[in-house]
């Protein structure tokens, strides 16, 4: 490993880039990005199609392909109705595809479902815990179902209780747990047989922010243990927490890649603007030749300008125009491009094609 960091450490002390996006010191270390993922492919999907008999016309899944390396955290991101649940059901071997194939750890989900089920933990959106059983009894039950050897059971249950910090609640009935704790228990039950692959369908939906955060911290630990995690979510901000992302929209995969790759591929940068009076601000932005598009977010406007180093020029132009129009400028800065920006861009591009 090269010590590219040394240069950065010696950079001038007074250099407080307020909106610095990166630090120079690690630039030499970008080569080996995912060393732990040099393992085998954990999940593979090829030409997957699912048509439901009841639906008129469009398929729920329309020829999707992706591959998830072992030990990765992969997020399948998309709005309600995009086809996330269908894809996960097929991968969990609880549903047959209409066309195409899916493999878990090399086993075809269609022809070798029992091999697949041994290796996965699957948490559907409406997971079923037994509300009348205690936390421990639920774990015990799932351990039996998953045929955890009798000798390992006790240790494994203790491990799962510790992992999810449910030790103090082990005798509480599942039905009496808070929403966040129920999710954690479901996660523990799905992991009781030490699966290689964990498939979670919208685990963070309907969970309060503190529990949501805890859940993502837990997922990070699972991944660090070497488990491959495939998680679906309708929340774009959660996509950034994944090592790799697949964006699903109307049954099609818009893109796959690391969050960085997806964002770097965007043909624009974003400038955030807040100035008063609001109406005049909109006017100035709308009239600015260097602005491709903009949309309001609260009192601010998020303004799309072309990238490639033109951003500061566009910001200069905006600043001059605001000044000339005697606007009171509160914010004028380059903003981070988000996964939502990427999603919106890709959907618009697709619509333009159609």
């Amino acid at each position, binding site marked *: 490993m090269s010590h590219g960091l040394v240069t950065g450490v010696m950079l001038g002390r007074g250099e407080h880039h307020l*909106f610095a996006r990166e630090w120079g010191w*690690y630039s030499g270390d970008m080569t080996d990005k995912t060393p732990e993922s040099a393992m085998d492919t954990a999940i593979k999907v090829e030409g997957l199609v699912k048509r439901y008999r009841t639906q008129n016309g469009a398929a729920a899944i329309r020829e999707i392909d992706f591959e998830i390396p072992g030990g990765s955290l992969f997020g399948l991101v998309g709005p*309600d109705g995009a086809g996330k649940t269908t894809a996960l059901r097929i991968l969990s071997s609880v549903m047959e595809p209409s066309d195409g194939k899916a493999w878990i750890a090399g086993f075809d989900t269609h022809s070798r479902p029992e091999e697949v089920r041994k290796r996965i933990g699957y948490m559907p959106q409406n997971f079923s815990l037994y509300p009348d059983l205690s936390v421990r009894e639920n774990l015990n039950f799932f351990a039996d179902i998953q045929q955890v050897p009798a000798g390992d059971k006790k240790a494994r249950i203790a491990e799962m209780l510790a992992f999810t910090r449910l030790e103090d609640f082990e005798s509480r009935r599942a039905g009496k747990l808070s929403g966040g704790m129920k999710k954690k228990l479901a996660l523990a039950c799905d992991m009781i047989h030490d699966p290689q692959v964990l498939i979670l369908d919208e685990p963070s939906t309907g969970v309060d922010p503190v529990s949501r955060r805890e859940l993502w911290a837990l997922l990070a630990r699972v991944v660090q243990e070497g488990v491959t995690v495939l998680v679906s979510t309708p929340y774009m901000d959660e996509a*950034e927490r994944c090592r790799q992302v697949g964006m699903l929209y109307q049954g099609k995969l818009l893109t796959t890649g690391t969050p960085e790759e997806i964002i770097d591929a965007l043909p624009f940068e974003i400038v955030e603007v807040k100035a008063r009076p609001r109406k005049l601000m909109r006017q100035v932005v709308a009239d600015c030749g260097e602005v491709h598009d903009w949309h309001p977010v609260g009192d601010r406007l998020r303004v799309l300008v072309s990238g490639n180093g033109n951003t500061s020029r566009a910001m200069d132009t905006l600043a001059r125009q605001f000044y000339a129009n005697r606007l009171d400028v509160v914010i004028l800065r380059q903003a981070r491009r988000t996964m939502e920006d990427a999603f919106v861009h890709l959907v*618009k591009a697709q619509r333009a094609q159609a």
Partner: protein
Amino acid sequence: MNEYTNAVEAKGLTKRFGKFTAVDSVDFTIPRGEIFGLLGPNGAGKTTTIRMLCGLLLPDAGSATVQGFDVASQPEEVKQRIGYMSQKFSLYNDLTVLENIRFYAEIYGLPAERRATRVEELIEMAGLKDFKHEPTHTLSGAWRQRLALACAIVHNPPMLFLDEATAGVDPVSRREFWDLIYALAGEGVSVLTTTHYMDEADYCNTIGMMYQAELIALASPDEIKDELPGVLVQVDCERPVEASEILQGLPEVHNVAVHGAQVHVTLKHEWQARKIGTALTYAGFAVHSMETIQPSLEDAFISMVMQRQSRATQVPGQPQNRSIA
């Protein structure tokens, strides 16, 4: 019409259900034409607050006015002046788009001679022209949402309540939906929206954050984020959980949270980022990238909740909160 300056004024608004206090002394005002977001996890008291403001539930203490009318003593006056749209918008699936809007126009007692123009106006506004004669059940979620909005404002209410009404659709449709809301606000309509999805609240002018029946913050999204102490740095490195344990031991580090593949680190100063990057590399963790990020409203919410429970149970993922002195 009576004189009023604020669309909503709530003072000490309180609701109890038996021993349980669902809303505890909540104060806020919504100026005319503003979009106010009531934010908080499920069960925080948002829906109960809305129901009191709509004149559907009587407050146990405190008072509130909507469009200048008291919600307790003049609920009928209030109801005439509000539009209400909830997550489970009540549309009639067997009726067409047009029939749904017409139905609501009749329910709200729109005079027959104005009905046809208003219905057309709403179809135009919501962009539903091409679907006019489609049965509602064939519409996608995003179009149903627009139809529900059209139905909720058929009687031109100056005050609109959106109860968890904006979630679940794709981001493009969500932005388009907000464009409609901004257009209404531009015409002077005041809006109160609730959401448990923190990102959504960025679209509001002012936010009230609710937690366990109380209003724990009241400010603009920017002000709320700016009040967070320190600088938030997102670190993308290998083995983030182990890395977070190293980071927690560093004197510069105020707070560490693991978000899936990323670690969020709160520092006092931005220049300290270099130091922690160096520390991680020397400890054998390849750092892929680091950048300062603006805290999200969720970060702000969690920070406030943590402060409140500082002595209560620790939450994993937020293991340490050192003072930032």
